């Protein structure tokens, strides 16, 4: 491969991607709602109409998975949502005739929105890491090249190693996988480390349940990660890369394999890239269902074929990492930013975001919110903008209670901080964390003690068991939380939780244990009265904790229609049609809430 050949492909495919193309999302979400069948149907229809110059392309995730399957007609960027396989014919006809299929458009405040970027969900976003997702067919390297792909690698290889590192350093980008360590610094340490064998690793384990940006990038734009890893390899002096990817992401794994194969074929990976004395290969390794393997040293143990238990640090991976050699590890999203930074320069990147948190961040917006999906916004955007402007607010007219940020290591952000600009430092100030960008919105029907318990259940399940405080301590905390939610909380339990939490944080070996108590500490900080209500008043204010909740029929409102009794799964409701007011037998009731929703007269409540 030389630059002329690269540019030739670029020119050729820039033209091709400007043709009429039906881009159908084939990410995990849309595939599960039959976008694969849709693609086949469109293909068939195209064949039967013998339309030339129109093609259908698989793309990666558009980020708006809740509205999937999503179809975008390029180059007009017409955006169709909730498309069914049966819609194939109309879509193709529309493309041929130049007419928009109105019933597939999104409606916002009674207005039909035609174009992708005009949707509320997209118009406040700024896409850098996700810039190619949805625009290209990720299984065709040429399309990536058409959008400047591998130009950054070429540029880097013609720049000194120190300068490459300086660009990354000056861009101010911080790691997107967790703690937000300055990426440039990490590269520098790895470069300076002694040793003639070094490794570049990509953390694609995406453990935070509720976050799926890394999956999206791998499915929609795998080459951006490969290119960045090659650049990193050049910068630090490594010739071998490993991508550690969750086995739960079969589509991502497949696309990565395709991408590696295509890049190798074109000489963009392998020996003497761009004729330079630089060689770089990438191998995939699959995770096997252990959250802790997202932790850098555990990940390395896992690649080495061991139990995924973290190792003590120092020595840091930059000095002694994979197979005992100096190793650079970055997250998928971090890498996805790199080619852009190299091409456009650090000062361009610097201007986006805030002073100490430059660039953009992808959030996985989920939970009780209207527009569930992936959003990429400049650092410093407020939570309110994300939740209300992009996310479209809370469904069913309920109220915002808190957003859980940073997953099991993070904390919750209550209403009063809705206007805090989101960046690394302000989040940690208020007891939450950027983490990998999971952002789960909770409405006022959620019990915060239950949520804390949920996260602790997760960490107890996922603790590797290596060190004492995390192995036993998180379990003991969970036991206390469980008894609180079961109405058996005792005076002093909160203090016990706090003491355990602080000692587990201080004493644990790895980040998992060090942050496991955070959800408890943060809910205690902002919702202490809910804990107290559980312990002292034996009440769950949100009616979530079953042992502390009673479902009751208001006899004054009951019209003796019997509907509730028919729907109760445990036959807990007695009464006589039209005669005797219905009543719930509390011993049988499992608080499923079915009767509440079924009663036509709203006579039942918690």
């Amino acid at each position, binding site marked *: 491969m030389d630059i002329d050949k690269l540019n030739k492909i670029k020119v050729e495919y820039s033209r091709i991607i400007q043709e009429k193309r039906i881009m159908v999302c084939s990410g995990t979400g849309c595939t599960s709602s039959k976008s694969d069948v849709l693609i086949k149907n469109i293909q068939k229809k195209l064949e039967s109409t013998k339309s030339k110059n129109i093609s259908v392309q698989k793309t990666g995730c558009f980020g708006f998975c809740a509205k999937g399957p999503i179809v975008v007609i390029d180059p007009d960027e017409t955006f169709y949502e909730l498309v069914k396989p049966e819609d194939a014919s109309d879509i193709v006809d529309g493309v041929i005739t130049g007419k928009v299929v109105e019933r597939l458009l999104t409606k916002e405040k009674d207005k039909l929105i035609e174009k992708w970027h005009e949707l509320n969900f997209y118009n406040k976003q700024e896409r850098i890491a996700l810039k190619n997702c949805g625009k290209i067919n990720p299984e065709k390297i040429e399309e990536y090249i058409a959008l400047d792909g591998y130009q950054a690698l070429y540029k880097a290889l013609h720049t000194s190693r120190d300068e490459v590192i300086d660009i990354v350093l000056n861009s101010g980008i911080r790691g997107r996988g967790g703690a937000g360590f300055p990426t440039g610094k990490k590269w520098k340490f790895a470069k300076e480390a002694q040793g003639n064998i070094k490794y570049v690793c990509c953390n694609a384990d995406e453990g935070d349940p509720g976050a799926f940006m890394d999956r999206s990038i791998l499915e929609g734009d795998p080459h951006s990660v490969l290119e960045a890893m090659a650049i990193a390899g050049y910068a630090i002096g490594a010739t071998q890369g490993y991508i550690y990817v969750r086995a739960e992401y079969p589509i991502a794994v497949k696309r990565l394999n395709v991408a590696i194969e295509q890049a190798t074929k074109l000489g963009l990976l392998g020996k003497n890239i761009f004729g330079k004395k630089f060689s770089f290969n990438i191998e995939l390794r699959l995770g096997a269902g*252990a959250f802790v393997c997202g932790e850098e040293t555990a990940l390395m143990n896992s690649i080495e074929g061991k*139990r995924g238990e973290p190792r*003590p640090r*120092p*020595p840091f991976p930059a000095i002694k990492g994979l197979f005992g050699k100096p190793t650079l590890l970055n997250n998928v999203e971090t890498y996805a930013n790199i080619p852009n930074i190299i091409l456009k320069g650090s000062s361009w990147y610097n201007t986006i975001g805030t002073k100490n948190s430059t660039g953009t961040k992808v959030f996985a917006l989920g939970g009780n919110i209207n527009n569930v999906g992936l959003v990429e916004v400049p650092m410093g955007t407020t939570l309110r903008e994300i939740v209300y402007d992009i996310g479209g607010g809370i469904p069913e007219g309920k109220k915002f209670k808190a957003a859980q940020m940073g997953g099991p290591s993070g904390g919750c952000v209550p209403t009063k901080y809705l206007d805090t600009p989101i960046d690394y430092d302000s989040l940690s100030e208020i007891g939450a964390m950027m983490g990998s960008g999971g952002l789960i919105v909770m409405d006022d029907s959620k019990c915060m003690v239950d949520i804390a318990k949920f996260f602790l259940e997760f960490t*107890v*399940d*996922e*603790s*590797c*068991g*290596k*060190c*004492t*405080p995390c*192995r*036993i*301590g998180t*379990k*003991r905390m969970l*036991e206390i939380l469980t*008894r609180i939610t079961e109405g058996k909380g005792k005076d002093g339990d909160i203090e*016990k939780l706090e*003491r*355990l939490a602080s*000692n*587990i*944080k*201080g*004493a*644990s*070996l790895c980040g998992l244990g*060090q942050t496991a108590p955070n959800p408890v500490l943060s809910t205690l900080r902002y919702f202490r009265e809910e804990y107290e209500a559980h312990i002292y008043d034996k009440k769950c204010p949100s009616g979530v904790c079953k042992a502390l909740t009673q479902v009751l029929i208001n006899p004054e409102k009951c019209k003796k229609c019997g509907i509730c009794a028919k729907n109760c799964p445990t036959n807990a409701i007695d009464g006589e049609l039209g005669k005797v007011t219905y009543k719930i037998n509390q011993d049988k009731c499992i608080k499923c809430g079915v009767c509440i929703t079924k009663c036509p007269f709203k006579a039942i409540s918690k």
Partner: protein
Amino acid sequence: MYRKKKMITLTIDSRAVTVPEGTTILEAARKIDIDIPTLCFLKEINEVGDCRMCLVEIEGVRGYKASCVYPVEEGLVVRTNTKGLIDTKRTILELLLSSHEKKCLTCVRSTNCRLQDLCRRFEIPDLEYEVEMPEADLDDSSECVVRNTAKCILCKRCVNVCKKVQGVAAISTMNRGFHAKVGVALDMGMRDSTCVGCGQCVIHCPVGALVEKSNVGQLREALADKNKIVIIQTAPAVRATIGEEFGMPIGTLVTGKMVAALRRIGFDKIFDTDLGADMTIMEEATEFIERLKSNSNLPMITSCSSGWITFAEKFYPELLSHLSSTKSPMEILGTLIKTYYAKKEGIDPKDIYSVALMPCSAKKAEIIRDELKLEGNIQAVDNVITTREMARMLKEANIDLASLNDEEYDNPLGEATGAGHIFGTTGGVMEAALRSVSYLLDGTEVKNVEFKQVRGTKAIKEATITIAGKEHKIAISQGLSNASILLNQIKDGTSPYSFIEVMTCPGGCINGGGQPIVDEYKASKIDVKGLRAKALYKADKKAKFRKSHENQSVQKIYSDFIGKPNGKVAHELLHTHYNKQEVYTEK
């Protein structure tokens, strides 16, 4: 290339200390006698940072750090005893206790248990947690070692000793999180695993989660049985260690006191395994000469360490022909007791209850081997009692070994030479053989009996010796992972040796799996193996005869009973054979 290590100065609890680069904070602290509590740390074997008891505060570093795995850096300011640290460590101990089967009163490790000790040191109060315990796994399938996960604190010393020192990896960590435990593959018992019974895991376990399989009960019964003649033999290494259990300094030789104590407890005869060792040399050295002559099955490998035999049968069945066919000293003596001695005294061997006081847990499995059964399908040795078990028996019988006067072994199986004594330490068997081999070949007596090349702590020792004018290379290994290095050479056809001594336990039997357990902190301050070995070399020096063939009783046994070394009777009674052992087979 040897590079002199940089020296680093740091401050620990306001005191400056200078240590070489690469030292850990823990070791630097120990250098100035600050005893940072540890549970999992075991130098060079288990440097894992798991238990978190050794946490320290480092100025400018976020969070507490495990000092056992933190390398020193110039100018570090370290605190080991702040209020926060102490509270954290108390929490760790409370947590450990919350999932521990707290049965100190009935636990053999009580008063020599690191967890118990630390709980007292930190004054851990009654527990505040209402708790679920991890599923307990009690495994007594092995003849040698009993595993009880209910007392395990998951320090993983055993796992790494078994893997790194012994190369056996019979036990490993399984499951994860709260359900993590140390166990055997396929959740089988130790008996089904690659375990060789050496007990190295036992003597490195800081608590009572791994203990020897106790056979004291049967011994009590036998001693009380009027119809039994109860005879005990004592292994070379026990006399150098049993004093420790009675408060005597490490390395105190207590042969006479031990004999006195055993007599008090009621044994009818007290014989010396060291005589068996002298017999072993007669047989093994003769066998070696024969193999040299016929140039077959070389190198020959010693066969007296019982963990090693099991190891060879499980891991290197294809090399079994290299093992000397000579029985171990214990088995030889046991055989002589039930044949030679019984005949001489006119006793029915079935009336003899033959006990061996051993430094070793593997011996407990050796005595039941079918290959070692005597005429009438009886065992040569009926019961193996370890040093620790015997110390407990003596204490329960109100015998304070330290205060007794020396007594002598009984005849005719109580006489031993210095060569027999040194069997208990690494290199000892080889040295003993070298003292006799040329005599057995052509009657030449070696002038200098001390072969310093084969002594010492090196993992693998080598020497060149001259036998009948020809040079031969010999090697000595301790710890089975070192044995593997030598064995792989044989497999590859690159072994330069003629004769190899293999000791299962690092240091040999003086550090066997049945020996007194020395706390890790104490062991870091003194050379336990060295001091114990020294005691045996002292016994050797003091001995009237220092070559096995000079043992008068041995000479008499040959002339009266056995005939010639490696002769017909010898082969019948003093030799054995080995068979491949399958592991992890489903029943």
